[in-house]
């Protein structure tokens, strides 16, 4: 399954084409460059393709009535894209299989195409996918979890509730989790009918509630907990059956349903999208967090996972070079390694992307990320020499 995406005129994005979305894709760029927009657009179209697969499965299983309609205006509003519609954005997302079998979803002139009955996914290409979007609003989770009961009915935006639901689901399965890169442990306890989240030092010298822990801890814990959940604990069968039964009941088609393929025979994939995993962390911890994520998604995982994250951190991109070398040397660094061929790093700027993968070496070009430090000391040297700043 090879994915590509072409986006034109979507907010800060002028024209971005990714021919092959790699299993680990990293986006770096200035604030407002379009990293999040790109990641949200990819996540949205992956979700649309997932739903198209479910619809294709049901149609091929003799369920004639469509269980749902795609409402792009709602999805664009959820993504925060509604103001971008006036520029007539165009998005084409394509999934390609061997023998040149392709499925394309195309959005243009405010209309989605590629999801009709003539476009159904063939039986051998059916996938059941699960998506997770860990937004930067995750820092509200500890407070929300603490006071959730008193905030019933409150709405903090689509992405917050998506990440909160994943966090809540993950903490149903995982009660204790070592956060090695922070030298801490997360403990989930049931007190009366509520879940409470605690942070403990390794030898239990102290324990405090998650909402009173450091900002770095509050940002990092949801990332690690959700990644651990999807890596090893996510129950595809249960999730799929729940979706299926819900749709069949909704359309009153339960008796018509003649499964064309067993769930066990359908390929499955998890897609995790993370906004700035490094938020509020010191550089050392940033690198260890990335090792932990790569380990969970590509080394110790039971489920097949693709990971995309955005970042502002040159440390993280440099750290990826270490993980590539670790793979080439068949070693693990903090439990992690990544194959060069599975990785892409794009710098997003001026509405376009620059591929940072070096073609003649097995590394990522981090030189562009050193420009800031070079500029600081170039200016320092000029001031030192001339007593005033002279731009060449």
């Amino acid at each position, binding site marked *: 399954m090879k994915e590509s995406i072409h986006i034109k005129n979507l907010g800060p994005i002028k024209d971005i084409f990714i021919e092959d979305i790699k299993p680990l894709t990293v986006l770096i760029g200035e604030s407002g460059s379009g990293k999040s927009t790109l990641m949200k657009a990819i996540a949205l179209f992956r979700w649309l393709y997932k739903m198209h697969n479910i619809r294709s499965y049901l149609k091929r299983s003799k369920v004639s009535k469509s269980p749902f309609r795609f409402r792009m205006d709602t999805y664009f509003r959820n993504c925060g894209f509604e103001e971008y519609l006036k520029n007539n954005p165009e998005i084409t997302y394509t999934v390609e299989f061997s023998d040149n079998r392709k499925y394309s979803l195309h959005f243009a002139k405010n209309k989605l195409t590629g999801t009709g009955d003539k476009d159904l996914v063939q039986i051998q290409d059916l996938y059941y996918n699960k998506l997770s979007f860990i937004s930067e609003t995750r820092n509200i989770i500890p407070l929300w979890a603490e006071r959730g009961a008193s905030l019933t009915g409150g709405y903090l935006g689509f992405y917050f509730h998506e990440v909160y639901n994943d966090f809540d689901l993950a903490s149903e399965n995982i009660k204790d989790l070592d956060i090695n890169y922070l030298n801490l442990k997360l403990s989930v306890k049931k007190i009366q009918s509520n879940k409470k989240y605690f942070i403990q030092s390794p030898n239990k010298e102290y324990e405090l509630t998650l909402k009173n822990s450091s900002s770095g801890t509050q940002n990092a814990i949801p990332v690690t907990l959700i990644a651990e959940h999807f890596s090893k604990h996510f129950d595809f069968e249960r999730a799929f059956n729940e979706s299926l039964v819900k749709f069949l009941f909704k359309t009153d088609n339960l008796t018509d349903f003649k499964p064309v393929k067993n769930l066990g025979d359908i390929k499955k994939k998890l897609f995790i999208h993370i906004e700035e995993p490094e938020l509020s962390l010191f550089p050392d911890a940033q690198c260890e967090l990335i090792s932990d994520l790569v380990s969970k998604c590509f080394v110790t995982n039971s489920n097949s996972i693709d990971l995309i994250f955005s970042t502002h951190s*040159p440390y993280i991109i*440099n750290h990826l*070079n270490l993980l590539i070398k670790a793979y080439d040397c068949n070693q693990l660094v903090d439990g992690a390694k990544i194959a060069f061929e599975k990785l892409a790093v794009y710098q997003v700027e001026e509405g376009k992307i*620059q*591929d*940072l*993968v*070096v*073609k*003649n*070496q097995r*590394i990522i*070009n*981090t*030189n*562009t*990320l*050193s*420009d800031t*430090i*070079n*500029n600081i*000391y*170039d*200016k*320092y*040297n*000029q001031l*030192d020499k001339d007593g005033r700043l002279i*731009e*060449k």
Partner: protein
Amino acid sequence: MEDLLRNDFTAHYGLPVCIEPNLVIQTNETYFEIEDTVTREIALHRINGGGMARFSNPNAIEITIANYDKFVTSLPHHFQNGRKRCDIIVCDDGRNLIFGEIKDSPNIKQHRKKAKKQLYESLTTLIAVPQFLALTNNKTVKRCCYFNKQTSSPAILTATAAFNRLSLIFQDGFQMSHPAIEGQNFEFWEYLGGHTLTLT
């Protein structure tokens, strides 16, 4: 290359023959560096760190270096007006054909962006000349290169050196993606600091 620029290029664009002196220099040194001087001349250095773009020439091939910037600047204003141009074109009788934009400057980020445009526009301007297009067909090493000699930080601070360590690990320069240049069957390469282009 000199004849191609002075005669074929100008004839193709309907311009008078270029009579600007010292457009081209030649060398067969096994190591040389090129400096783009403030007077738009090209100077060769044999000492490490003397120039801005580093070349290794282990087989002592006869190399021609054309001052493309000076050449375009010598042409009538109506032609050069607004036309982006790179600094040099390096070639030999063998397989090498290199476009180069060379800098010794802060603001690396801005210059990289500008250099890509200068290189691409120089390439398309020249490829439109049939004699140049024919020349490219005989070459196998076809590169558009951005060179920048990096400056250093105060000696007691290691941050700059630490952030630039990748350039010390790999000496050959980095081939990066540039779809427009690749569309012309050339490659885009970046040479920073100690990176050296080896001509073979």
